[in-house]
């Protein structure tokens, strides 16, 4: 009986904290029926628990722990600032859009758009250095003369419309 009590008393605290297995619980409860000493020990545990729990809970109710929040806020402020790349990575990690792996076609689309935009921009700033104003001149009936005045920015294409015409091609 004494041996049985010593093995049960090891389980008694865990039984009180409801941490025993089903098998252990059946064993302890079976023993408690027949052992007043162990019942007293369990009762003592209950009284001790009540003795500690009541004043602690009362103190917690009164306290709002402002210093805890202050400490948390200070810790947040002191936390190292993320670089833009880390921020981007963290944003990508949390974004459901990027989790779905649609960023590859999105990046490709952006690249295509950039190429198109670049084309338009370069179109608007042409280089006139190699620009020829008159590409060709043909006449099967008259003489034609072409001259350009760079200062006045004028190009003249002159047809010599004479009554007696030569068959000339310029």
């Amino acid at each position: 009986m004494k041996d049985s009590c010593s093995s049960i008393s090891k389980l008694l605290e865990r039984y009180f904290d409801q941490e025993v297995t089903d098998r252990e619980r059946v064993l302890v409860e079976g023993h408690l029926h027949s052992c007043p000493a162990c019942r007293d020990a369990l009762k003592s545990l209950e009284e001790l628990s009540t003795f500690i729990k009541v004043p602690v809970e009362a103190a917690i109710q009164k306290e709002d722990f402002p210093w805890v929040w202050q400490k948390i806020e200070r810790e947040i402020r002191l936390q190292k600032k993320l670089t833009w790349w880390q921020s981007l990575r963290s944003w990508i990690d949390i974004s459901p859009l990027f989790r779905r792996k649609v960023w590859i076609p999105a990046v490709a689309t952006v690249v295509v758009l950039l190429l198109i935009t670049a084309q338009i921009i370069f179109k608007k700033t042409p280089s006139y250095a190699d620009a020829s104003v008159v590409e060709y001149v043909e006449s099967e009936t008259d003489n034609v003369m072409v001259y350009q005045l760079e200062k006045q920015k004028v190009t003249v294409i002159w047809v010599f419309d004479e009554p007696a015409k030569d068959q000339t091609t310029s």
Partner: protein
Amino acid sequence: MKRSFFLLILIVLFLSLFFSSADAQVQVRLRAIHASNSGSSVDPSLRDLHKELGSLFSFTSYRLMKDEILNLSLNQPVSISAREGRIVLEATLVGLHKNMPEIKLKVVREGTEILNTQVRLLPGRTILVGGPRHLRGGVVIYALHARF
């Protein structure tokens, strides 16, 4: 699904590029001038060209016969007649080179093509096509410049 969506975007982009180049249009100001030595008047609407005309030619009178803004579309010829329809200038936009319009010009005198040329209109540059005789003496000069 994602792949087909991406392909659709690409197709839309390329189609928009294709149509944007296909419907190229250029505005060209074309003036038909009768230059002669009868009188010494210069049409007030030719004030901007008077200096150039005076330095290039020895005519004393410049009269504006026509002043039109042509909306040239790709490969769509536009004709302007002068001298009661006996001289016709036909302008056709044949392309754009570095955003500069390339225009084919034909001058037809009484049904005969007397000039066939292709020019590139640069910003700020005027092209003068002249020489065909006018019935009342003097010549016809066409002045062209693109509106950018």
